[in-house]
């Protein structure tokens, strides 16, 4: 089976120094590393939000690095989903408008269907009753779950998440992580940058980056609620061994 995502010798300024890895469809991987190691830069360059200096990024049979800005935007809109640490949403739209927004921009004709799907996603993440609220009228955890809904509206092949729980308290972070685990269980592929060993322990694989290079990889297998504690301890030990 061909990999969903193949990254080959990716370089960017002095931050990424030849990164290569693969991801299979349905995987959820965490990218970890100390501050300034290049975790976020890797995510931005893999997703085409930033332009790499050299190297290749294949999303199935599409080489992203060589595409122009418009084509990259098109790939991001139709085949990728994004969740950020800062819960960026359009402040002049309410929750459901924000979720439906990418779909409406991609296909204005079926507006009604997009809104029905947006509401369905909100319901799945237990925030259906917040649909008409302003983004300022909901909690951080609720807003981040709404952002996950937005990332799913176009039924993407992969979701990129940059420190999705970084700005949340533990309870909200758990709600958000449960949401990610839920969508991964349903088959979504997730690449997540995180500082948090507990979050990373929920993922199937962890890539450890230092000075722009992958210095180690840990395979944990699919998340198992009964194994949570052990997995976290394993991750902590591994990180310590990597010099974390």
């Amino acid at each position, binding site marked *: 089976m061909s990999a969903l995502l193949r990254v080959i010798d990716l370089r960017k300024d002095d931050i990424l120094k030849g990164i290569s890895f693969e991801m299979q469809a349905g995987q959820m991987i965490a990218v970890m590393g100390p*501050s*300034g190691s290049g*975790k*976020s*830069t890797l995510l*931005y360059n893999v*997703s085409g*939000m*930033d*332009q790499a200096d050299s190297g290749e990024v294949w999303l199935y049979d599409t080489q992203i690095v060589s595409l122009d*800005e*418009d084509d990259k*935007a*098109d*790939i*991001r*809109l*139709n085949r*990728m*989903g*994004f969740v*950020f640490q*800062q819960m*960026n*949403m*359009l*402040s*002049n*739209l*309410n929750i459901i*408008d924000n979720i*439906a*927004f*990418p779909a*409406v*921009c*991609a296909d204005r004709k079926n*507006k009604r269907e997009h809104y029905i799907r947006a509401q369905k996603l909100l319901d799945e993440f237990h925030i259906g009753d917040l649909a008409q609220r302003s983004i300022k009228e909901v909690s951080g955890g609720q807003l981040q779950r709404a952002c996950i809904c*937005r*990332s799913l509206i176009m039924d993407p092949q992969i979701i990129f998440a940059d420190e999705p729980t970084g700005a949340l308290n533990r309870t909200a972070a758990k709600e958000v992580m449960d949401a990610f685990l839920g969508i991964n269980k349903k088959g979504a592929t997730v690449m997540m940058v995180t500082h948090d060993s507990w979050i990373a322990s929920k993922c199937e694989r962890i890539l450890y980056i230092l000075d722009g290079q992958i210095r180690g990889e840990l395979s944990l297998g699919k998340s198992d609620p009964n194994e949570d504690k052990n997995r976290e301890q394993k991750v902590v030990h591994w990180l310590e061994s990597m010099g974390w």
Partner: protein
Amino acid sequence: MLKRLIFNDLRKNRLINIATCIFMAVTAMLLGLSIFLFARLYFSIDMLMRDAQTPHFLQMHTGRIEEERIYAFARSRKDVEKMQILTFLNLQNSQLSIGDISFEANMQDNGLCTQSKSFDYLLDAKNDVIYPKEGEVYVPVAYKNEYDIKIGDTFNIGNEKLIVAGFLRDSQMNSMMASSKRFLVSEADYERLKYLGSEEYLIEFRLKQGSDVNAFYTSYKDCSLYDNGPAITYPLIKLMNALSDGIMILVILLVSIVILFISILCIRYILLTELKKDMRQIGMMKAVGISGKDIGHLYISKYLMLSLIGCIVGMISALLTAKKLSINIRDLYGEPENALFIYILMLVCSVIGQAIILLSVRRSISKTKKQSAIEALLGNADISKRKNMWLTASVIVASAVFMILVPLGMKDTMADLDFVTYMGIGNSHIRADVRQNDIKKETFRFIDAIKNDERVDRYCLMQTGSYKVKLENENTYDLMIENGDHSAFPVSYKKGEAPKNENEIALSILNAEEMDLDIGDQVIVFMEKDGKESECKCTVCGIYSDITNGGKSAKACLKDDTAPIMWSIIYISLKDEGSVSDWVNEYQDMSDGIKIVKISEYLDGMYGTTIRNIANASFLTVILSGVIIIVVILLLMRLIILKERNESSLKKALGLKTFDICKEYFKKLSAYVLSGIVFGVILGVFLGQRLAGALLSMMGAQGFRFVIDPLSTFIYVPVFIAASAFAAAFISLGTIKSISASECLNSGME
């Protein structure tokens, strides 16, 4: 969704959106207003001249005429469609009054006439031909407001009385710049009142379509027909009609173009402020794959809506203002038939103005396309350079100063007594015109009287006669030459200087252009000397601008006692300028048939309306400039403070006080505002002179010196602009207080 997005943005950013809308509305209003007034004036004059059947060529003449000679000339010409000889009963202004108001101070040549038979009709408010009944008089509409005349008032000519039955539009003498005014009476009254004045003839021709008016003019003069008065052509009548209101309209047009430029700059910075503020959201949209085109569409849609509102508000304000400003045009020239076309034209021009603004908005938005999603998302995208923003403040301040100084300078230039010297008139205290009865006898009687008057400082006699001249290329022309001492009360020369000897001649610009002569060229003037016909070879020594006598005149010092004098002008200056009014009153009572006027009143009579119109436009410009400066500086400072928020936060973290940061901004703003003011003043004085020159040359004044009032130019206007700018800066600097020292700590990126 789009509607909600725009509506919520309008609601949240109320102030900034209102400011944008105001700029759009003011641009639409001024553009619409100037085009409306311009089109209305043009079409109304056109319609009046068509309905009245204005003559294409008109020759005034005093003295006996043999009508058959003129009819024979007309029959010999294929280009003449119709011709007629009208009479005009010239009356003494001192004899005239309406109710209690005397016409004594009136500068115009007022007289009676009857309705024309075949063209050059005098029309009523509906542009219908008027046929007055016995005992009735129709008054020129230009006097309606000036003397507050009402229908039913009594018009007195000496002891004779007529009832004002209405007001008339005179297509050739409507403008206050035309020096005569016709009052319409019935034929019976005209015959009855003939004894009160002296008759002048108006020899008028209507030419067939496509005929060359200038060629006809030359042929008429070549045939040595009756021509001891000014000759006027159709284009000149049209120009005179257009000028008094036209200059004000051109000033409004000039201001609206400057405002359009300022609006583009301001809206650009409003948009850049907004984009800067929205950069994270733009980054997020880009990150999730929304194309730059779609993001641009969101902003363009909002600006399109603001533009629509601005355009509607601007058009409504333009229509309301236009109603007030066009009262004079409506009274003088009537309602144009194609009003709908004018409204459409007005709308089209306002829409073009909005389109220019929206194009600039699109250009600014396209800047965001160049930013990568991640630059935008992390707020690192720099879409406006700071230096450019300070420079913009400077440019807008300079534009505002320029916008105030041009109309102000034009007003001061026209109101200055020296202005008459650019019009072919000497700058003395008093001017006495002798145009009736035995001109020579009257002139010398008057001169004898003032010669022994101790109050008179100096005087100078100018006598005008018609001469035939021949050029080196054998072409001949008829010239009206004013003979006298031209150094006593000199006019301003565009080129060269006044004639000093008998072999020198100065020409008005129109004559020099028509005869293709320049300084140093020679002409031969034919005249009679000691009963014999003689020639005098004259060198062109000067060229000057002239609005009198249709702009065609010449000045020389020919000693020719035998040639008939068409009219005499005596320029007088008194030792005590304060006693001019008393002197004029005293001599007016003594000298029937001589029109004695103060030069300042002469100027006011001719250009008073224009000067007042420009003064109104200047006042409007000052207010507008103040508002614009306040809004612009508020916006720019807001944007700059927003851009430098992190730096300011860092400064606070390092221990600087809010006051210290404010002081830095204030110093910088002061430097740019003051340099803008200096640049604006220089621009206003030098470029303004050229612009005002171009406008005033349309009135016949060329090569003039732009008069600047040093107090307004160097003190009042700069202080007003600086005060507006600093007031706005003071308000916007208040936001620095809200910047916390800790903000800079959270702004790094991994």
